[in-house]
């Protein structure tokens, strides 16, 4: 079942389409990573999902129901951080969470302690939020989002401002929330490495468009092992590979490197054939493709198929 579904979601701002015909499908219990450079439209989509801004066209379905201007009930089933986490700075961390529970009508005060414990802020709960660092505010934002055990978490760049250890802790926390409690999580980031480590499905966005929505399993297959050959004679090498060795899964990168995926013959034979055809080889590496390559190939078309 889809927890979130958008159809042709579009938002025009000052005559420019900042979100353009986005069709998203977020399944129950999955971690859905929205990946894209700054200004790709990730935050705008999230603001539309939370009813903070209204779509110019298209529609949003949350928990199987269409989101309208007065869909308040659906909002109660979500926990969110949009842009920077915002608090009442002159109140303590605990006061902020207590207010949150009051507004949601969530009676269990124990949940506040649990949430603070999960993000390691239990010891500073009596401190005013204005004394918090950005990283602490991020953690508190996550604590607030998860306090009332929502079914859907919408987190906009939640790992900004955290140190590497903090990032890992939160990554583990998100995975735990997803696996143990079945919470569906939509998380946005421009940091490929982070998304790669937690997401089940990745939506690549650029320039307001959703370029691809793909499962990590699929990407794992796409980004399989390859042999990378650095040579000054790319076209000659490609010709040899294709016509003499009959290898078709060959790509030439912008940097003048040749990548051979699923190479059917041993590397030594490959080298021999190239050398015999007078192709000057500078370097040969066996590599595993990363999400970064995949991402760049979608966003920039950085890899050209021969």
């Amino acid at each position, binding site marked *: 079942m889809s927890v979130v579904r958008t159809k042709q979601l579009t938002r025009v*701002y000052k005559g420019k389409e900042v979100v353009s015909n986005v069709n998203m499908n977020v399944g129950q219990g999955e971690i859905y990573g929205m990946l894209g450079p700054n200004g790709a439209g990730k935050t705008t989509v999230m603001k539309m999902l*939370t*009813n*903070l*801004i*209204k779509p110019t066209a298209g529609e949003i379905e949350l928990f199987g129901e269409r989101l309208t*201007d*007065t869909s*308040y*009930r*659906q*909002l*109660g089933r*979500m926990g*969110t951080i*949009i*842009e920077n986490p*915002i*608090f*009442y*700075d*002159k*109140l303590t961390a605990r006061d902020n969470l207590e*207010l*949150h529970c*009051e*507004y*949601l009508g969530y009676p269990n005060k124990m949940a506040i302690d649990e949430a603070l414990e999960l993000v390691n802020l239990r010891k500073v709960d009596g401190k005013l939020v204005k004394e918090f660092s950005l990283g602490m505010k991020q953690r508190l934002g996550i604590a607030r989002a998860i306090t009332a055990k929502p079914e859907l978490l919408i987190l906009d760049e939640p790992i900004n401002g955290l140190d590497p250890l903090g990032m890992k802790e939160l990554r583990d926390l998100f995975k735990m929330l997803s696996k143990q409690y079945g919470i569906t999580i939509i998380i946005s980031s421009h940091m490929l490495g982070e998304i790669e480590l937690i997401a089940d499905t990745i939506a690549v966005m650029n320039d307001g468009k959703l370029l691809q929505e793909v499962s990590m399993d699929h990407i794992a297959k796409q980004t399989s092992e390859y042999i990378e050959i650095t040579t000054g004679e790319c076209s000659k090498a490609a010709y040899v590979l294709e016509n003499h060795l009959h290898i078709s899964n060959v790509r030439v990168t912008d940097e003048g490197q040749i990548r051979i995926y699923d190479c059917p013959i041993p590397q030594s034979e490959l080298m021999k054939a190239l050398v015999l055809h007078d192709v000057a080889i500078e370097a040969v590496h066996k590599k595993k493709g990363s999400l970064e390559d995949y991402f760049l190939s979608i966003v920039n078309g950085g890899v050209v198929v021969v």
Partner: protein
Amino acid sequence: MFKLMRLEMRKFRIGTYIRAAVIANVVILALVCAISLNEEITQDVPFTSYGMAFSVIDTLVRGTYVVFAAVLLSRLVIDEFRSKSITVLFMYPINRKKLIAAKLLVVALFTLAADIAANLFIGAGFLLFNQFTDIIAEPITGAIAAHSLFVTVMSALATSLLGLIPLYIGMRNYSGAATVASSFFVVALVCQTADGFTLYSIIAVPIGLALLGAAVAYMSIRNIEHIDVLK
């Protein structure tokens, strides 16, 4: 609605404002006593009857609480938009109209209660002061007291609503300073006197301004569900 108002008061520490109001009242009382003494010396007329004295007190109180209301509006409403914390509030499963209405009700009711309380406190204080100084010679009768109380309550009702007018200016660009500054214009309109004549004494003026305040409040919540909160 009552719960929402209670949460607003908790969030913004209403106690601080009550303390500030008490201090303001003491200052006004001191001011009224000082003026009345001065008037006695110059034999200039405003403090010749209780009616006039209470009218001066009411004017001072009105001016103070119109500005006070603007400060509250700026904290409860404008600041929430400026600091974007309104986005947090608007993501709760609560009708947005109710959320904003609760804030405006807190401001209006606070102004109403504070205006009446201030008039009673300062009026009583002045009566006590008069016992020792005899600035006003006439005796205080039940009729004078009842009439003054009626005028005070009516005036406070109007003040509580017209105190919302600065919201219109403040919401233009989410500026707390503009809200408070515009309240001074409202004060200038409703508290001025020229030779004992005040614009506020024309009954249509307070009623008209109160309706304007109510209209501003209505305008601020009418479309709140359909607009983009923050772009």
